[in-house]
């Protein structure tokens, strides 16, 4: 196996594109090294992207934030203002693993590892984040919900790298939240995760929403119907009941050691209601 640590995206892309064998981007390595250790993968080339400036920076852009794909969870939490503008995204990224994992794990890796249960992904989707992807054909911008296709399958072509994410400018009276359910309080993989972002009008009625569910399908879902019911005219308790039903209806989960299908579907509805209530509260206070 070769290890390369280029300083530009062009060099990284060229290295990945030219390798005929299995080539992998290395960000925090918290998925990659485990998979190498357990012989799930056996790459011949690792391209460490942490020497590339864009992947490691956070900066304010277009009223929002551009976040390098290789920024760690610990760095996200320490960056001023980000956690008050997009608390759901920062909280979701900070749910990944332990303090030690937080020191290395990145949102680019969380997305590109291709797990349907990745915690930061539903929060990014709810916030309307876009991934800036660089490859042999140049740069393209893709909504985060369009990056993952199925477990371990992404819409990235050979040689493509997620360079950064753009969290958009947050409209007035907008709040986001992410909740996950795990069987204990730390160090486990989501049974269900739910990210919600919603915008209120001056009277406090919801005018726009994005709802995303993780770990209930082959990939994190953007649930349009759940968002639509939130913008209805009914009283909040009714809206939340409808949200619960719409979230459940979108689930097509599997049975595994963390939960049965029925259980995941039920929890998805409950988490959607709870995340929506936090997002409402944050939207009112923002």
């Amino acid at each position, binding site marked *: *196996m070769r290890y390369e640590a280029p300083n530009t995206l062009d060099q990284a892309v060229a290295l990945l594109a030219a390798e005929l064998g299995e080539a992998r981007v290395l960000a925090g390595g918290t998925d990659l090294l*485990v998979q190498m*250790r357990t012989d799930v993968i056996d790459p011949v080339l690792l391209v460490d992207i*942490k020497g590339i400036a864009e992947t490691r920076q956070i900066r304010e852009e277009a009223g929002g934030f551009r976040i390098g794909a290789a920024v760690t969870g610990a760095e996200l939490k320490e960056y001023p203002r980000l956690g008050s503008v997009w608390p759901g995204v920062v909280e979701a990224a900070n749910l990944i693993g332990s*303090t*030690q994992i937080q*020191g290395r794990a990145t949102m680019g890796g969380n997305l590109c590892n291709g797990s349907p249960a990745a915690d930061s992904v539903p929060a990014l989707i709810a916030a309307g984040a876009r991934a800036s992807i660089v490859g042999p054909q140049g740069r393209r911008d893709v909504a985060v919900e369009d990056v993952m296709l199925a477990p371990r399958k992404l819409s990235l072509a050979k040689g493509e790298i997620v360079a950064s994410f753009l969290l958009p400018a947050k409209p007035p009276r907008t709040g986001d939240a992410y909740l996950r359910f795990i069987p204990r309080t*730390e*160090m486990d993989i989501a049974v269900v995760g739910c990210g919600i972002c919603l915008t209120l009008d001056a009277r406090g009625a919801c005018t726009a929403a994005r709802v995303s569910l993780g770990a209930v399908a082959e990939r994190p879902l953007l649930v349009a119907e759940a968002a639509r019911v939130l913008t209805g005219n009914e009283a909040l308790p009714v809206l939340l009941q409808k949200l619960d039903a719409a979230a459940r209806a979108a689930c097509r989960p599997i049975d595994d050691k963390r939960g049965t299908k029925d259980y995941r579907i039920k929890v998805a509805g409950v988490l959607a209601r709870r995340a929506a209530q936090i997002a409402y509260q944050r939207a009112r206070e923002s």
Partner: protein
Amino acid sequence: MAKHHIAAVVNGDPVEFLCEPGDTLLDVLRDALGLTGTKEGCSTGDCGACSVTVDGRLVCACLMLGVEAAGTSIGTIEGMANGEELHPLQRKFLEHAALQCGICTPGFLVAAKSLLERSPDPTETEVRYWLAGNLCRCTGYDKIVRAVLDAAAEMRGA
């Protein structure tokens, strides 16, 4: 495949080592540098026995490659005591009997030191969350948490 020649700083001292691209930082510390205080429990990021700091950030040495350590400053358990004088955390672990077999202890100490550098007066909850990535099969954690809180109090001069 040619080995990589890496220069880094470990516990304040410049070091150089050769490593294969696939060697973890844990392999390098234990096998190339003879620093066997950093333990290997799981090699998959779950147990925290391999906790070290890299440029001040707490990480699992088993989830980082040796080649990635180039140019960094690494802190291990061997750098914790000042000569013969134990760090307050080390003394408190002994006083509170916060260890039995001891394999988890270096990881807990390095992790706890990193917590107290950021948060000199942590709550019990903070301590428990910060140390959630360090597993202990012997003590039941209570004595560890007490030792950390007691060391924090002593270090604050309370």
